[in-house]
């Protein structure tokens, strides 16, 4: 079972303290490619939440059978097989949703967030905790990608919720800046994503430093991660 405190720690780590995108800086490749608008960012994150929860619970359940020396190939095998199974099940049973999320699911296979969480958390913790870890790491990614996508979309093309009609056919994107807005191409290209992501990281560090100052503590040391992006 899971205690309240454990749950709080897992949720806090996933959403803020060890946020995959702005603290661990993992999964940059899909992040850069997909966040040209907010809807895409949210959709990729939703697909990632599902895959991470499934992968974490599978590895956590099998963790006692996996020899330490070959854990990485086994993890990759498990993650790749499960992603494919999720992809097939989506396609067969939730076809409408698949048409929307489908293109993002193969992207996740290449996303090292999944492997990183499996290695760092699920391999050492029971299934229930691991499931929550997968979900909350995904939630952390969700709000970061949504924010980044919204900023890029707003600066780049002056709209919000572009592509929402793919998800809910009755809704239309909102034009915020006047139609004559010429667009700001840099924001839509990968360099713009890097710059804005840098701003987000700076903002997060500033918030943490301010909170630490108030509490008269040392600011938290940055989390060191392996070189997987």
């Amino acid at each position, binding site marked *: 079972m899971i205690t309240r405190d454990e749950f709080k720690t897992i949720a806090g780590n996933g959403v803020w303290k060890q946020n995959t995108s702005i603290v661990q800086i993992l999964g940059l490749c899909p992040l850069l490619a997909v966040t040209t608008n907010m809807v895409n960012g949210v959709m990729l994150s939703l697909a990632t939440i599902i895959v991470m929860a499934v992968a974490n619970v599978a590895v956590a359940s099998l*963790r*006692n*059978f*996996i*020899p*330490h*020396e*070959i*854990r990485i*190939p*086994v993890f990759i*095998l*498990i993650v790749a*097989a499960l992603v*494919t*199974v999720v992809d*097939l*099940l989506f*396609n*067969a*049973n939730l*076809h409408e949703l698949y048409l929307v999320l489908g293109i993002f699911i193969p992207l996740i296979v290449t996303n090292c967030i999944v492997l990183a969480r499996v290695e760092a958390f699920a*391999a050492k913790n029971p299934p229930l905790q691991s499931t929550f870890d997968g979900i909350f790491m995904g939630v952390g990614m969700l709000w970061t990608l949504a924010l980044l996508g919204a900023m890029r979309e707003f600066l780049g093309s002056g709209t919000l919720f572009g592509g929402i009609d793919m998800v809910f056919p009755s809704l239309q994107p909102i034009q915020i800046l006047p139609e004559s807005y010429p667009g700001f191409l840099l924001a839509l290209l990968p360099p713009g994503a890097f710059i804005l992501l840098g701003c987000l990281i700076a903002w997060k560090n500033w918030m943490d430093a301010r909170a630490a100052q108030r509490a008269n503590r040392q600011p938290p040391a940055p989390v060191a991660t392996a070189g997987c992006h």
Partner: protein
Amino acid sequence: MTSAPKEFSAPGMAARTAATLFIFVIVFTGLLSGAYLWTKPAIEASAAEEKMKLVNEVLPSSEYDNLLLDDTVTLPPTPELGLAEPTTLYRARKDGQPVALVFEAVAPDGYAGKIKLIVAVRADGQVAGVRVTQHKETPGLGDYVEVKKDKNKAHPWITQFTGMSLAQVADSEWKVKKDGGRLDYYAGATVTPRAVSKAVLKAVKWAEANRNQLFANAGATK
């Protein structure tokens, strides 16, 4: 991970690890094949449904009574249609009589690359319908060839072709008005409709020339 490490010789350790990995591979490959076989019918059904949805847009399903998806001919790469790869052509029949051919065509000279079309031509040479299935034309400018993006919802641009035939409309008329033809276009984006019109004319001519042979062809039964 595992409890107290037992002492193994190096070969013994290697064999044990290999066996474990092997079991994992077997189990997950099995899981994968199981999921594939279990979901296959549903996935094929929805793929067929999607195809039919597209075909229904260019040819009303009330006009034929055969199983369209089973009455097909595999076309080799056809330069006349701009097709560089083999595609599938569908034959619509009613009471065994030819009704229409439904096939793909590509306009190679769009403003931003190829524009893929699906075209239905009736047995009498009339265009039953044309739809754009894939394109990269400028959003908000040339993309009105796609029904969903056309601001004129009552009579989308692409529906102008419906009912046109070589017998009624001279070759020189299968052009946008700017080029002396009869087709409307939106100011500011003529390259896209020009490319589509050209491709449709070529498709109709190709269907005219090959129709009898295509309907007679035994074709590929599924």
